């Protein structure tokens, strides 16, 4: 029975090697790569399903189109009709994060989005792309983004400093939000679960009275499911907000 739980709650986020070429970085197969492959395989199949469900509505097509429609509505409301150019990116991001988060909710699975390095590097490169988009579109006028409209002149240097800081901190905070959410959610679930396990394992009395807090654990798991979907949505929403900033400047 002791084999059911782990030593440290952080052990669940450990990278496990399958195949090592040189070091962890070059062409090595880990836990992460396997799950990444699974998610991309699902995304590819989802794309083929989405392409084939023209008029023959079955439940899968409806489920896919519901996601598609949600994202389309979000992108259109954030960026206007021009945002349609960036809709494929948003939809891919959303699908990827949704699937990664939901796969990580399965028992004994691996939480892909709790790995800080890949997620933060993803958000960093997205932010870099958005900045490059703004610079390409507006040339040097892009920097007017850092001066809010109607600022009195003496305040401008301070405000520019603050806006620059807030703009560049977006790169980190976007990925950190998702990652920290998933990380702490999974830690919380594991700790509550092992607590319940210890309580119900202790005695008959504990078994009986453990039923009530068990409901709390179930509610926690449901909240985590909701959060895993919501965080993917929030990520895309904030990112399209940033993209709107660099497309339209205010």
């Amino acid at each position, binding site marked *: 029975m002791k084999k059911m739980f*782990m*030593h440290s709650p952080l052990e669940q986020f450990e990278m*496990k090697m399958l195949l090592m070429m040189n070091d962890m970085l070059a062409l090595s197969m880990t836990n992460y790569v396997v799950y990444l492959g699974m998610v991309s395989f699902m995304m590819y199949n989802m794309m083929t399903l989405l392409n084939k469900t023209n008029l023959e509505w*079955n*439940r899968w097509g409806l489920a896919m189109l519901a996601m598609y429609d949600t994202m389309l509505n979000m992108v259109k409301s954030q960026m206007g009709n021009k945002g349609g150019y960036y809709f494929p990116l948003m939809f891919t991001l959303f699908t990827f994060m949704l699937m990664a988060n939901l796969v990580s909710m*399965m028992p*004994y699975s691996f939480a892909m989005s709790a790995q800080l390095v890949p997620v933060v590097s993803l958000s960093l490169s997205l932010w870099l792309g958005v900045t490059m988009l703004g610079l390409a579109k507006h040339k040097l006028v892009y920097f007017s983004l850092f001066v809010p409209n109607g600022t009195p002149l003496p305040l401008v240097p301070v405000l520019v400093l603050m806006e620059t800081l807030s703009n560049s901190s977006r790169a980190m905070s976007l990925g950190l939000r998702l990652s920290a959410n998933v990380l702490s959610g999974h830690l919380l679930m594991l700790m509550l679960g092992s607590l319940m396990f210890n309580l119900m394992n202790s005695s008959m009395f504990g078994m009986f009275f453990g039923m009530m807090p068990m409901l709390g654990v179930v509610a926690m798991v449901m909240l985590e499911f909701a959060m895993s979907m919501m965080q993917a949505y929030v990520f895309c929403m904030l990112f399209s907000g940033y993209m709107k900033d660099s497309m339209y400047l205010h």
Partner: protein
Amino acid sequence: MSFIARRQLSTLIPPKIASVKNIGENPNAKRMGELVSFYKKLPTGPAPAAKKPINPFLRYKAAYFDGNNASGKPLVHFAAFILILGYTWEYQTHLKHHH
């Protein structure tokens, strides 16, 4: 002038309402016969089941994704797969060493 003359000419000739050929048979009968023979050639009864694909992926798709068979069961299968894979992996790397 000529147009009036032609009009007069056309009003003079009576329309062909009845002729020997048309009185003798129902004009629709021949067309109906063609129609009946066409429909007789069509296959009757329930449609034959679609041929089962040999490729296991396509068979899985036919069983759980296509048409009326669409259901959420692949998600359950996937969860079971993850459970088995994850437990095996976890056992090999961690759980074996903790006693």
